[in-house]
């Protein structure tokens, strides 16, 4: 999708107009060959199309990182904010414009390290934001430092002898913190990811989708993956199990695997609505 010509070719084979959502002058994108971020963008655009949302009613907010470069390439209302702060910026936007569909694009470092505090408080408030966490287990943009999702023992420029910090599970954290929709997808399972993102967009409340994707340039090379596709097969395909299948599998088959699909969904009062009724309603006597 990096070049106009590629986008045109896709238009011929797939009945989908990507150009409608892209800013062609901003392409080609910065992502390395084999990076998962572009695949996620494709799934996201298709999910947005399927949602029927008007693109002018969408605001996409990101922090800083390779993944956070996404809003630069898409033709929505967009804001590229600060490392770790996308949630706080998005909260302000949603509060001012509750009818806007606000989508947060963030990396695992952005969301869970420097922005970890904002992440949990966003979930706790259950404000209506769609949050896509691009989990590639590394800080891609700054050259391969370990992140809060780097598996134990793995190599990064900052963990030459193997990472000794236990990783976060973004989904468990989101659920524990109070998000009312929690799901996981991978760049490998593209169609499934598209559906999951669509469901997240439709949900009212904080919807977190943890998306496992690959950084072949840093994480891949340092951890001896042969190629981007090899990473996708090992980490995304073999390393995950769909929640639907998981029920049918014996526990030993699930060991060490991450669950995919919608992991948690509940109805919980949404923050902006609560504010309108419980606070403003009372304050103004209506």
């Amino acid at each position, binding site marked *: 999708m990096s070049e106009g010509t590629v986008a045109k070719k896709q238009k011929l084979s797939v009945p989908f107009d990507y150009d409608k959502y892209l800013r062609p002058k901003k392409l080609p994108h910065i992502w390395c060959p084999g990076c998962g971020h572009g695949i996620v963008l494709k799934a996201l655009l298709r999910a947005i199309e399927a949602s029927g949302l008007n693109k002018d009613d969408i605001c996409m907010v990101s922090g800083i990182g390779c993944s956070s470069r996404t809003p630069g390439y898409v033709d929505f209302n967009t804001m590229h904010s*600060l490392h*770790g702060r996308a949630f706080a910026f998005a909260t302000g936007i949603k509060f001012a414009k509750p009818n806007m569909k606000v989508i947060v694009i963030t990396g695992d470092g952005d969301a869970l390290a420097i922005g970890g505090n904002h992440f949990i408080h966003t979930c706790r408030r259950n404000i209506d934001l769609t949050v896509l966490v691009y989990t590639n287990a590394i800080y891609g943009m*700054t050259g391969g430092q370990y992140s809060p999702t780097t598996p134990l023992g793995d190599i990064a420029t*900052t963990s*030459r002898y193997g990472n000794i910090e236990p990783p976060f599970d973004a989904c468990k954290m989101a659920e524990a913190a109070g998000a009312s929709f929690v799901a996981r997808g991978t760049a490998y399972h593209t169609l499934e990811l598209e559906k999951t993102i669509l469901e997240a967009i439709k949900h009212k409340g904080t919807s977190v989708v943890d998306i496992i994707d690959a950084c072949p340039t840093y994480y891949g090379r340092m951890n001896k993956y042969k190629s981007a596709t090899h990473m996708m097969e090992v980490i995304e395909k073999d390393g995950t199990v769909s929640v639907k299948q998981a029920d049918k599998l014996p526990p030993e088959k699930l060991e060490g695997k991450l669950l995919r699909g919608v992991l948690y969904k509940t109805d919980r009062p949404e923050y902006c609505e609560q504010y309108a009724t419980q606070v403003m309603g009372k304050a103004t006597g209506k």
Partner: protein
Amino acid sequence: MATNTAMKKQTGLTGNSAIAIAMKQINPDVCPAYPITPSTAIIEDFSSYVADGDVDTELITVESEHSAMSACIGAAAAGARVMTATSSQGLALMWEMLYIASGMRLPIVITNVNRALSAPINIHCDHSDSMGARDAGWVQLYSETVQEAYDNLIMAVRIAENEKVLLPVMVCLDGFITSHAIENITLLDKAEVQSFIGEYKPERSLLDIDHPSTFGAMTLQDAYMTFKHQQSEAMTRAKDVVSSVSAEFAKKFGRNYGLIDAYRLEDAEIAIVILNSAAGTTKVVVDELRKQGKKAGMLRLRLFRPLPHKEIADALKNCKAVAVLDRADSMNDFGGPLFNEVRSALYDGETRPKVISRIYGLGGRDYKIKDATDVFDELSAAVKTGKTDTLTKYITL
């Protein structure tokens, strides 16, 4: 001995690699770090030194610069020699803690690789990051070259830890221009560095349980101002300490740095005042103008905090027109930060030159020979007519 040293160890290094080597030779006790362009490579190199057992440093890879500076403060209060490196938003995120570090009088040393501040996001050089921290109570040293950045960092340890100072020190160098370009540099031996900086013996520390101490405790109208006064006096004293440490460095290693770098200013009528790498370009233009018989000069501040105001006034005292070039804007409709301070330093002079503010090179915009030449042309015209065009203006637009 100095020349022998120079001949022996000349090598080509980027600013970041040179800083990392200085850190290796200093061998701090603790280095909390979080990566940010363009300073990332410093910690990247340094983490290899840690991994290879070349240093005894505990490298703590924290989750943000807020945590990095907090951990620096904790470690320094515990009595450790502490260093880190950052840039731009990283320094901005440390801002709250910068004041804690200086207020607690902790001799932390950091490298700030100068980079523009967001928004819009930009990764290239300007000085808005360190200028934003200019009132945070940190000694600030600026470096024209890779060599100077390396030397400054080694001297910074001595300056910070001097008992008359006990203030944190920030060594600044230009992002990409100095951090990523390879220049010739002469390295010292680790033993030379170690003997120059000496062992760090904190006067008081949290781990000195025989002399319990408290850091940052609540002080109200009774004592807060006294602490600030002491801090302010320490900053005043820092100037002489920078001079004496630099003199000792020159004597030992043959490289001589003043508080300011006055270039062909003795009889200069027109001058540019500038920081960091852009001084190089400016000197080339000064030389060219001198060939044409024009009395041009340049003043570069190596020390910006504390401000060597007497030295500035003295260096510029014969000038008729001066342009202060800022790579940061104070957004005050009254010129950049360096301009305002330099102009103020000149106020008490017997003959005050005309002083104008020119903002250049924001977000990595090039500053070229022609830009400096144009500024000097403006200054020449001002000398002739006795009038300046506009007080403040953006150049290199």
